[in-house]
């Protein structure tokens, strides 16, 4: 019995795996996918039944000749309905709209079932056909928007085709039901069945809303709560995205093609079945649609997802226009019924299986803010517009509608080719939209604007300058000074004149760093402030400002050299040093000597503010010797003094200071203050000593984002001569990952081709390490339940994360991405939608072989799938014992691996661990030695 139960369990497990593999779903995902599949099937059955019955009844009672007029009516009605749906999205969630639409659909079915048996007037058949098509269009649009809330792009690539297949299963059932039961229960009975099915779908939607967890997309507005954007802003956003425009255009032409092709095959069928009676055509259409839906289902379940994964979405987009091209190339010359059937296959098969799925996936490259509404526009608005336009075209052409179809096919193919070319970039733009561009200056923002926007922006700044708030005015002045617009200077000075003392002092500091620091207008204005104001505080700052520019006379300043006020003393020293007053050479030399002595005294002071002031004065000396003097103050106990010293060195540094670069790097490593670090990085950039690259990179591992950006910029400035060194450092597995990442990023900017050529070599080792860490991080404790291996487990998983980080950064750098950091951040995002976009971006930008290798690691897969990928990667993992695992870590060139191994050996008191450690120390570096000594002592 137990054997049997075990056997049954294994069999059921194997069946489940087979099922999951066949449908491309992960473990634990089945119930979730089934809910959406049921929803699609239920509403598809109802909608397809209603559509097919209304089509056949319309053709029989009214005739194909009236189809163009119906298209016009459907189009006009749908434009109204789509506008209503778009407006409703501002107030309601997709779930609410979906349930309302389904309730209306069920009502239409029930109402129709009452009248079809009698002999209703002609407008009833028009109404039935129009409402059935409108219901279908609204359902397609809103059900995908609803579904989209619960899936990210990577999920969508796997499971959306299943939902499409479920939809086709619903249409097959509808076709089969029409064929089997039309004679027995008639049109009314089938319409009541349709209503029941739609209502079952409504119940399923309610269950999904209650039980399934939505994938939040916090970068999008209103997907969950209803968007509040106006229609005008929506149009504006669409026009800003080239991809959205072309995708919508393609969709519009596809709709035109759909209607024209439908007209063409209906016309052929109408003449072929003119003598067969009303049920013959309905039965033929039902059979054809059932068969096509069966094929669609097969394609949806088993082929589409795999096809997209193999060939890529950008290639799949070409399938539909190429199929239409093949059909029309024959159809324009021959009237055979076979072409009409192929036309039906193109419309009911290819358009639904391939084109619709492609659109759903491609819509992920549309800006997130407009994604849901682009889908509504496509499915409701464009179908209507397509119908309206094609109705008009068919009216105008009368004959030659197949040539029209052929021309439309050619246009659709051209648009598909354009989409194919820009898809990857659009995905990346979408990803970039999530990034905050802290590195951009005001000038960069203005440069990205249109001329009109730029003009408006400058107007806005000037308007802020006239604001009543001093804070706002100061910000506006900051902006205007950064723009360097001399025309704005008079107004700035006029505004500044009305400022209070504190605001005037802030303004002085802004002027100091601007290009107008020594402008005569500014100097005059400062003189005027001093005359008008009796504030001693302002006078001190203004004096100091003018003294820095040598605008004071030494004779007037002499008296202040021993003044108790620090600012006046500082101003006096500066005046003696820099005065531009007409003085004899001896007198000037004497003044400089006195100033130097006073400055030395100030530097030796025990008061922090005096030393800081002295360092600021030192900054005004334009010689590297002054920077040398500031050097000891980098390790002063006060951070204020340290910052002043760093600023001084940053200002004065040049290549002549290269012998002090190691000292600066030492200080950089020890420092924690952002301003201090930035100043030292600037100084190192001016020194530009390529022999210090490794040390700078090592110091950068604890940097903040803006410090890393600065370091990157300074190393890039060193140029191509550092490329070989950077390559060696990127490959050096013994270095910390963060340092290697920075080296790789700079290498990518300096010599992309070289990085790409070496990428496989660099990443092969890392991918191996990642799989190794991941597998043992998740299995080692289970293999040895009696040992406490939590530390090893944590270390292995931390190692895995850090290696994955490295891999992503390298791929970002080698993919010539403008901002690899953004990709990394997106891949680390807990937001599934952002994460899936990043994976898609990676797939589009990195080498296909590398992507296949790393996909299981970076993609958001269940643990079971990742473990399966580990085993597939390396079959001998399960045979490693704990001691073998630790020995393997010991042999690794990574310092991290070695430290973990010896720590564990010590903790578990493994035989001879001390001996092994001493042996290892003989050929290890200093960092390892230090750690090993500590371990041996404890």
């Amino acid at each position, binding site marked *: 019995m137990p054997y049997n139960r075990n056997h049954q369990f294994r069999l059921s497990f194997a069946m489940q795996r087979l099922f999951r593999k066949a449908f491309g779903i992960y473990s634990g995902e089945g119930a979730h996918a089934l809910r959406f599949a049921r929803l699609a099937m239920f509403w598809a059955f109802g909608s397809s039944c209603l559509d097919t019955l209304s089509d056949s009844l319309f053709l029989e009672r009214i005739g194909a000749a009236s189809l163009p007029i119906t298209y016009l009516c459907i189009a006009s009605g749908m434009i109204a309905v789509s506008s209503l749906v778009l407006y409703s999205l501002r107030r309601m969630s997709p779930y609410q709209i979906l349930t309302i639409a389904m309730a209306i659909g069920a009502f239409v079915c029930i109402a129709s079932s009452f009248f079809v048996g009698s002999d209703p007037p002609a407008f009833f058949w028009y109404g039935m056909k129009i409402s059935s098509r409108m219901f279908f269009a609204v359902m397609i649009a809103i059900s995908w928007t609803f579904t989209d809330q619960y899936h990210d792009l990577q999920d969508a690539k796997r499971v959306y085709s299943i939902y499409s297949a479920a939809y086709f299963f619903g249409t097959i059932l509808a076709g089969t039901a029409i064929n089997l039961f039309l004679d027995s229960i008639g049109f009314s009975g089938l319409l009541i069945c349709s209503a029941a099915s739609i209502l079952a779908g409504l119940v399923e939607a309610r269950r999904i809303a209650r039980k399934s967890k939505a994938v939040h997309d*916090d970068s999008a507005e209103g997907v969950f709560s209803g968007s509040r954007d106006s229609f005008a802003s929506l149009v504006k956003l669409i026009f800003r995205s080239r991809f959205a425009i072309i995708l919508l255009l393609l969709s519009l032409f596809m709709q035109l093609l759909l209607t024209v092709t439908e007209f063409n095959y209906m016309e052929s069928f109408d003449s072929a079945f003119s003598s067969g009676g009303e049920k013959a055509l309905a039965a033929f259409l039902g059979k054809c649609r059932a068969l096509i839906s069966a094929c669609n289902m097969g394609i949806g379940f088993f082929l589409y997802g795999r096809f997209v994964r193999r060939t890529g979405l950008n290639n799949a987009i070409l399938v539909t226009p190429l199929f239409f091209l093949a059909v029309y190339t024959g159809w324009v010359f021959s009237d055979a019924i076979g072409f009409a059937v192929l036309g039906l296959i193109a419309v009911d098969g290819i358009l639904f299986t391939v084109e619709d799925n492609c659109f759903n996936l491609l819509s992920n490259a549309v800006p997130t803010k407009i994604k849901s509404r682009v889908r509504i526009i496509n499915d409701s608005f464009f179908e209507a517009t397509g119908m309206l336009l094609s109705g008009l075209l068919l009216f105008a052409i009368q004959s030659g509608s197949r040539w029209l179809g052929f021309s439309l096919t050619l246009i659709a193919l051209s648009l598909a080719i354009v989409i194919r070319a820009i898809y990857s970039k659009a995905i990346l733009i979408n990803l970039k939209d999530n990034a905050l561009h802290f590195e951009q200056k005001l000038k960069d923002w203005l440069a990205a604007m249109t001329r009109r926007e730029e003009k408006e922006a400058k107007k*806005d700044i000037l308007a802020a300058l006239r604001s009543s*708030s001093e804070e706002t005015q100061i910000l506006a002045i900051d902006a205007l000074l950064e723009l360097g617009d001399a025309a704005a200077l008079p107004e700035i000075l006029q505004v500044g004149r009305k400022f209070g003392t504190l605001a005037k002092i802030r303004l002085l500091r802004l002027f100091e760093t601007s290009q107008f620091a020594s402008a005569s207008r500014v100097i005059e204005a400062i003189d005027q402030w001093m005359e008008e104001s009796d504030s001693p505080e302002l006078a001190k700052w203004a004096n100091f400002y003018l003294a820095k520019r040598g605008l004071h006379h030494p004779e007037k300043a002499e008296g202040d050299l021993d003044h108790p006020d620090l600012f006046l003393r500082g101003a006096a020293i500066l005046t003696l040093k820099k005065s531009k007053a007409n003085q004899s050479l001896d007198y000037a030399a004497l003044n400089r000597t006195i100033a130097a002595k006073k400055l030395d005294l100030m530097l030796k002071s025990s008061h922090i503010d005096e030393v800081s002031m002295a360092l600021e004065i030192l900054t005004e000396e334009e010689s590297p010797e002054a920077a040398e003097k500031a050097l000891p103050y980098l390790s002063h106990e006060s951070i204020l003094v340290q910052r002043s010293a760093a600023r001084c060195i940053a200002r004065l540094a040049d290549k002549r200071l290269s012998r002090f670069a190691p000292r600066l790097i030492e200080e950089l490593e020890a420092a924690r203050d952002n301003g201090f670090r930035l100043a030292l990085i600037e100084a190192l950039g001016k020194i530009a000593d390529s022999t210090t690259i490794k040390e700078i990179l090592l110091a950068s591992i604890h940097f903040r984002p803006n410090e890393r950006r600065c370091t990157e910029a300074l190393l890039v400035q060193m140029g191509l001569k550092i490329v070989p060194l950077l390559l060696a450092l990127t490959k050096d597995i013994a270095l910390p990952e963060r340092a290697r990442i920075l080296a790789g990023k700079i290498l990518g900017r300096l010599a992309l081709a070289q990085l790409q050529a070496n990428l496989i070599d660099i990443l092969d080792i890392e991918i191996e390490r990642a799989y190794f860490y991941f597998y043992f991080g998740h299995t080692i404790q289970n293999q040895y339940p009696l040992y406490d291996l939590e530390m090893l487990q944590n270390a292995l998983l931390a190692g895995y994360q850090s290696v994955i980080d490295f891999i992503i950064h390298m791929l970002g750098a080698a993919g010539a991405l403008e901002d690899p950091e953004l990709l990394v951040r997106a891949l680390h995002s807990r937001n599934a939608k952002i994460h899936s976009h990043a994976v898609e971006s990676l797939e589009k930008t990195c080498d296909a072989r590398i992507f296949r290798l790393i996909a299981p690691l970076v993609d958001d897969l269940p643990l079971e799938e990742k473990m399966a990928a580990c085993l597939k990667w390396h079959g001998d993992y399960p045979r490693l014992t704990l001691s073998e695992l630790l020995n393997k870590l010991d042999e690794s060139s990574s310092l991290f691996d070695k430290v973990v191994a010896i720590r564990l050996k010590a903790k578990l008191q493994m035989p001879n661990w001390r001996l092994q450690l001493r042996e290892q120390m003989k050929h290890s570096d200093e960092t390892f030695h230090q750690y090993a000594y500590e371990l041996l002592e404890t």
Partner: protein
Amino acid sequence: MTKSLIEKAFFLKKVRLFSDLDLELLLAIAEKLHEDDYEAGEKIFMPGQVANRIYLIEKGSVQICDERMKPYCELGCGDYFGDEALFNEQPRGYAALCKTDAIFLTLSRSHLLSIISECPSVSVSLLQAYAHHLPCRHKCNVVNELNGMR
């Protein structure tokens, strides 16, 4: 009419949370702000709703109500709300209603977290605001424990 990038950046300077930041940082944040306008009496969010965004009040006033819709406090221009749930990743714990016609500039959770990692002063401002409203961090626990003992 929607606000321009510059106008948004200047508005941010008036919000205590971002008042220490310089123009470059303000512009980067302003680019990610989304403008929403509400009419008087409209609900901005209700307790239990998914929390994705922080709201900065640009114009108008907002009534904050507890779970039983009892008015709690009123916020005006330059204030912000809706930030708490972004950090604890919980649904909204209170309701926000517009007392007058209002305009909000909103930021998503992921953007706010990026800003905090780039600008520590923002996180300090947030901590100061939380500390201001919470004289004793353990107060709730103590009350709960006392209730338990009783």
